[in-house]
């Protein structure tokens, strides 16, 4: 198990390095110069432009620039916002709470919906519960999240005179107000995510249910419930957990849109502010942080394989 963990950890670090190079590289290869974009909007003169280029390290060759950035980032220093002069690392840490809360609540709601639905669909295959579950899943897959969220906000206000309390409250300080603000975005988010999860769980369960060992266990006289719990569900957990990991980039991408619509000050809102202010430092940092969050999630998923499946624990 320790070898397995170590290997996974190494791979995760490698992936994070890769994505940082990719993000930094993409930002650097932008045609034209970021400083020119900034200057045009802030009316910098040539001397200020020169100073800014120096400060951002844009004069250096890419790998020198990247090395400096990485060195600072490893010490938790993601630079200062060009607009507010505040430490980007501190701002990010505060906003990560909001986004993670939304993502986690969304995933919990999605799982609460998809697990019973997926089980029902697989056990009653090709009967009406299956058709209903599958239809819900396909609908959820095709509905644009931002559309659903916009409709909910506007019609919530129009028909029920309902709107979330203004002014975001952190969950650690005012949990009740916080949940009043979060439940609707989390619910809609969860509904959207439940689509993929239901489908995967159903397919995975069907796959397990037709295995020979299921027949053996049944022949040995195991009750259906025990069979489902001990053999079928446990074995379909791997693809299910995998899909949660794979969904995570989508989850965080969706969070940007949901945060905008529900006016929540998370990473997504920070990114959009950064973009609106042409704040190069902020945008690059948010991208790397989000990629980092994705990679850590996938690492946790990989680690959970070790717990879920003894073969992986030993084999790797």
């Amino acid at each position, binding site marked *: 198990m320790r070898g397995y963990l170590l290997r996974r950890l190494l791979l995760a670090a490698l992936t994070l390095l*890769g994505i940082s190079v990719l993000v930094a590289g993409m930002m650097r290869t932008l045609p034209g110069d970021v400083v020119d974009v900034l200057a045009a909007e802030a009316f910098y003169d040539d001397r200020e432009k020169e100073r800014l280029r120096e400060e951002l390290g844009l004069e250096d060759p890419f790998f020198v620039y990247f090395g400096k950035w990485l060195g600072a980032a490893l010490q938790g220093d993601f630079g200062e916002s060009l607009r507010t002069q505040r430490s980007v690392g501190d701002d990010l840490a505060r906003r990560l709470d909001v986004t993670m809360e939304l993502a986690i609540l969304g995933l919990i709601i999605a799982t609460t919906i998809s697990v019973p639905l997926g089980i029902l669909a697989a056990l009653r295959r*090709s009967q009406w519960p299956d058709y209903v579950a599958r239809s819900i899943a396909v609908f959820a897959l095709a509905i644009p999240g931002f559309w659903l969220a*916009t409709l909910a906000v506007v019609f919530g206000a129009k028909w029920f005179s309902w709107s979330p309390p203004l002014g975001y409250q952190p969950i650690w300080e005012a949990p009740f107000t916080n949940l009043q603000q979060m439940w609707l975005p989390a619910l809609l988010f969860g509904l959207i995510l439940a689509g993929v999860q239901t489908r995967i769980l159903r397919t995975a369960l069907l796959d397990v249910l037709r295995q020979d060992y299921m027949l053996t266990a049944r022949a040995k006289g195991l009750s259906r419930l025990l069979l489902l719990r001990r053999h079928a569900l446990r074995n379909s957990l791997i693809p299910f957990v995998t899909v949660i990991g*794979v969904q995570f980039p989508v989850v965080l991408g969706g969070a940007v849109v949901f945060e905008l619509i529900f006016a929540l000050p998370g990473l997504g809102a920070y990114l959009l502010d950064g973009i609106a202010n042409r704040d190069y430092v902020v945008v690059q940092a948010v991208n790397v942080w989000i990629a980092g969050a994705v990679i850590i999630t*996938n690492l946790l998923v990989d680690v959970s394989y070790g717990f879920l499946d003894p073969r992986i624990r030993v084999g790797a």
Partner: protein
Amino acid sequence: MASSTPASASAPERPQSLAQAVLSGGTSAALRVAQVVRRYPFPCLMALVLLLIGLGSGLADLVAPADPLAINPRERLFGPTTTYIMGTDALGRDVFTRVLYGGRASLGVSIASVGIAIGISTFVGLVSGAVSGWLDVLVQRIVDVLMAFPGLIIVISLTAFLGNSVGLLIVVIAIALLGAGIRVARAAAIQVSSQPYIEAARTLGAGQARIIGRHILPNAMPPILVIATAQLGIAILIEASVSFLGYGIQPPAASWGFMLGAEARIHMIEQPWLSVWPGLAIFLTVFSFNIIGDALRDAFDPRLRGA
């Protein structure tokens, strides 16, 4: 998963799936179409819907009843009427016309980006799956990076700094789709590579390039086709989200995402229909792609029927 074996690659003594029967010919074209429709009525219906959306959008210049940019301040924010079947927006432009033109933008961007993504991922995935060794290890690491790539977030970050270019939008969406594509193509190549006929071809002296191009590629096609269909839907959703946030296709040009964005939200209470039509168009298109993708998977691999 072992269950994604391309059925068309397996032994002929197994009862033929309808897809195989159709592909191998032997019946008249009309009869074949009838067979497909009978076996897959709902997917066929959705294909028809998609065809209509595609034709309407593609031929928007000919079909659209009005000019998508023509402003008419006296007839603004109409609900559906006989003249304007989907009503008018805040500037008095015909919403139906704009939905058609918006479809051209959305479908165009998604088809182009999926085309690029599937082309590259088929090549990379097949080579990496068939050749294995250090190349495969390298590709797998690259796929790891691509899978962690928060597509939507990078798309808005880049378009924001680059100014909004449709070409860039297409390329970045394609990058966001690459990881999954390579993964599927590689898995298919590994599956096919273990088949006896590949060994037979190798014994006969076929080179690596020939084996990949002539033997692995055609047999690995079914799962690639399925993921391509699914990705068309995903690409539409990404493009729509980006345009919704205002960083995609730029006004006054129409796009489904943008029509749902600022344009509709401001006037949503006054004229709720504004936010219905483009959303419905996105939903129907993505829904159709998903249903067709499921049907394709079902047809290519009968073992998965209903899975």
